[in-house]
């Protein structure tokens, strides 16, 4: 069983807007960041909309951010929000606030695109100037390690760092890595972040796989035809629970446990019976020391593609059995778009907010459940107040990569479950 890990900071930017509270306000009102696209010419393309990046907030002059890509600046911004910087971008502020050496603070990032969005600018240059004369200097931004230098310098941290690129499970993977480092004693605090920009690379790629909806994205519905791509940047600050309680702080929520698995089935299609997803959810429950019926709500992956939704429902039915129909489900992607590598972290934050507010945001685009799924699902079409102690958040990605996170409402100091 995993020890409980405290979540003490959140940072969030999506197509809905910048900041945790801005996103929450708009989510609970049933708004969507999916809008007609402006950055790509889709006049001759069947998919016309998506969740594009909002403007990048000003990070100030001290961080030397102006020459960095917009997505990197967005990422640093959400990390600073999670650290409670609140405009104080002074390097080292987090380490001082937590009374930690900078080497004890880690940074785990999940992204499917990693640094590859610079390729778009490069190929524009190549198209305009030819192969021999293209601006190859643009590709200097391709180096992930240099991006981490910018992030860690900006945050004033020097501990363990890693970028996980497990497609749509990458963001949840960054939270899992944070848990690993804290459990292993390598770090006393970890910023777990996830990102993916709205990119023509993924927009066209998922379009080529017929995974994008040409109309409204409708998870679990009959006639569902896919998802919308959305930008997403999110960061959580995780610490050992005991440290947080010792300094008299109160966690926003707890990470009760997580599970990861591989389908071992196909690169792009999920296991039809949801075998890998079952493993991931089962491992998460075991890590959290919970029975399936302890889960009060599920934040679904729910890409609204025919095969993915079917496999996900089968997996949930196998894990939760008859109790599934009584568990309220949330489907985030019609509201914020599918943030791909950032989705797991974005949706982790939404799960924390559900616990904080004791309220589920409305699931957009859902209606009558596809009869072919042969299951009864409780999909909240309106914001719903309900008591929740445990929320499960699932991410299932290309390569058969699966991750399941379980978050717990913090109610009181718990010597039995806390980190020693």
């Amino acid at each position: 069983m995993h020890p409980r890990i405290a979540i003490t900071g959140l940072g969030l930017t999506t197509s809905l807007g910048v900041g945790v509270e801005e996103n929450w306000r708009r989510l609970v009102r049933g708004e969507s960041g999916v809008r007609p696209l402006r950055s790509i010419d889709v006049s001759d393309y069947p998919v016309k909309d998506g969740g594009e990046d909002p403007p990048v907030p000003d990070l100030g002059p001290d961080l030397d951010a102006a020459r960095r890509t917009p997505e990197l600046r967005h990422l640093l911004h959400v990390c600073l929000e999670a650290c409670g910087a609140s405009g104080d971008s002074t390097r080292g502020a987090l380490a001082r606030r937590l009374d930690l050496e900078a080497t004890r603070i880690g940074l785990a990032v999940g992204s499917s695109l990693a640094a590859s969005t610079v390729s778009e600018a490069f190929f524009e240059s190549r198209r305009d100037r030819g192969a021999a004369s293209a601006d190859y200097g643009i590709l200097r931004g391709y180096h992930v390690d240099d991006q981490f230098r910018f992030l860690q310098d900006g945050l004033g941290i020097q501990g363990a760092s890693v970028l996980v690129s497990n497609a749509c499970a990458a963001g949840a993977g960054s939270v899992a890595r944070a848990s690993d480092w804290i459990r292993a004693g390598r770090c006393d605090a970890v910023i777990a972040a996830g990102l993916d920009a709205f990119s023509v690379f993924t927009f066209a790629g998922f379009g080529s796989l017929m995974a994008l909806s040409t109309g409204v994205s409708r998870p679990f519905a009959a006639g569902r035809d896919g998802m919308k791509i959305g930008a997403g940047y999110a960061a959580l600050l995780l610490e050992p629970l005991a440290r947080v309680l010792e300094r008299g702080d109160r966690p926003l929520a707890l990470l009760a446990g997580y599970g990861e698995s591989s389908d071992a089935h196909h690169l792009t299609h999920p296991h039809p019976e949801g075998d890998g997803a079952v493993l991931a959810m089962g491992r998460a429950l075991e890590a959290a020391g919970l029975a399936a019926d302890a889960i009060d709500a599920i934040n679904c992956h729910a890409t609204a593609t025919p095969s993915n939704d079917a496999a996900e429902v089968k997996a949930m039915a196998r894990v939760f059995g008859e109790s599934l129909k009584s568990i309220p489900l949330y489907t985030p992607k019609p509201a914020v778009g599918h943030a791909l590598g950032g989705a797991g972290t974005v949706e982790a934050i939404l799960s924390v907010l559900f616990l904080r507010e004791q309220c589920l945001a409305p699931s957009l685009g859902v209606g009558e459940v596809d009869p072919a799924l042969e299951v009864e699902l409780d999909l909240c079409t309106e914001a719903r107040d309900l008591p929740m102690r445990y929320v499960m958040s699932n991410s299932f990605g290309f390569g058969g990569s699966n991750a399941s996170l379980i978050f717990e409402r913090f109610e009181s100091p718990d010597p039995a479950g806390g980190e020693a």
Partner: protein
Amino acid sequence: MSRYKKSPAEGAVGIRGLGVVAPQGVGAEVFWQRLLAGDSRPPQTPPSIFDAPVPARAHTLEATGFEAGEYADPRIVRRLSRYSAISLIAAQEAMGSGDHDGEPRDDVAVILGTAFGSGVYHFEYYNKLFEDGLKEASPLLFSESVINAATGHITHRLGLRGPGLALVGGEDVALKAAALAIDKLRLGDVSAALVGGTDEYCDVLHASLADQRIVARDTHDTACPYGEGSAVLMLQRIAADASVPEDALALLVGAGNARSPRGTDASDAVRMAVSAALRDARMEASEIDLIVSGAGILDVAGEFAGLVSVLDPERPRIICAPKTQVGEAFAFSSATQLLVATLTLARGEVPPSPRTRFDLPASWRLPQAREKSDARNALVVCGTRAGSATAVILARSPEES
């Protein structure tokens, strides 16, 4: 005397298998023998894939001269990117099996590092997208250019249902993969893990890397030639009350990762990472007698400035710098460091590191020809040009008394 007797006091991580696809050949044994002999491939003229302006006299160390279909199911590998194909071949060898035909292995993880993934498929996808438009985007190129395509294929073909993690990073990324695997195994999350690093050649990246002088622009350059390859290790958790298996090549005993507080000089990061790895291994610096460095011809990252600040420069040590033979191949280079450390400890010989031009303390030797080694504990360290470093410590597998 090795710290580990027959039954380690705490759970250990054993290295049970190796797999390699390299310029020196396919297969760990072939690779090792050629490395010992200093048998580097002659400089190769890089192929032009995207008409990138690679310097006219630049050369590469590519893993060529074999058919992937001879080492893995040809029906499968013919559709894969080179990145995925060579990863799968190396992983199969490390796992010690061919194509999966048995029950799924639920508790085996795959953790693979890369700096660029499949650059060729990635740029080919973009090329087609920009030339032909959105509607002509290739689903094959898109899905195969996803960074975790290689881990996806490995988990699929070998029937592995533990976590499959693709890590992207700098020169040290395979060492980060090893550090992560050590934690997962010690924590009991998995019982075994395939860990390694792969990077493939791409002329677009070559042009950029040569322009930045990260890889050699000609045969006389002090940067290493641009390389490619895949190296994978099979790791297994050894329970605290169990004996170390006789076929364990070596033990992974500690790891650390850090970033320098000052810009791109990695010397502070090396010092901090090595110190953290020694604490993790519960080992004294004096116990390190072999250093497998991530330096190439030059010590660009400042590794040795960091090393002498934490390891006594007066104490004799053997140094090996495999990048001088495999080139700057990023994840493959750092995975090769792990492999070299493993086999040096297991076989008692250290390969040569030709052409190096960095200064060492007088007591630290860098053999220019193969030689015997009685090293018991190896420090594998890689500092990056962006100012970070990862260190991993290996111990020789204890001998039966």
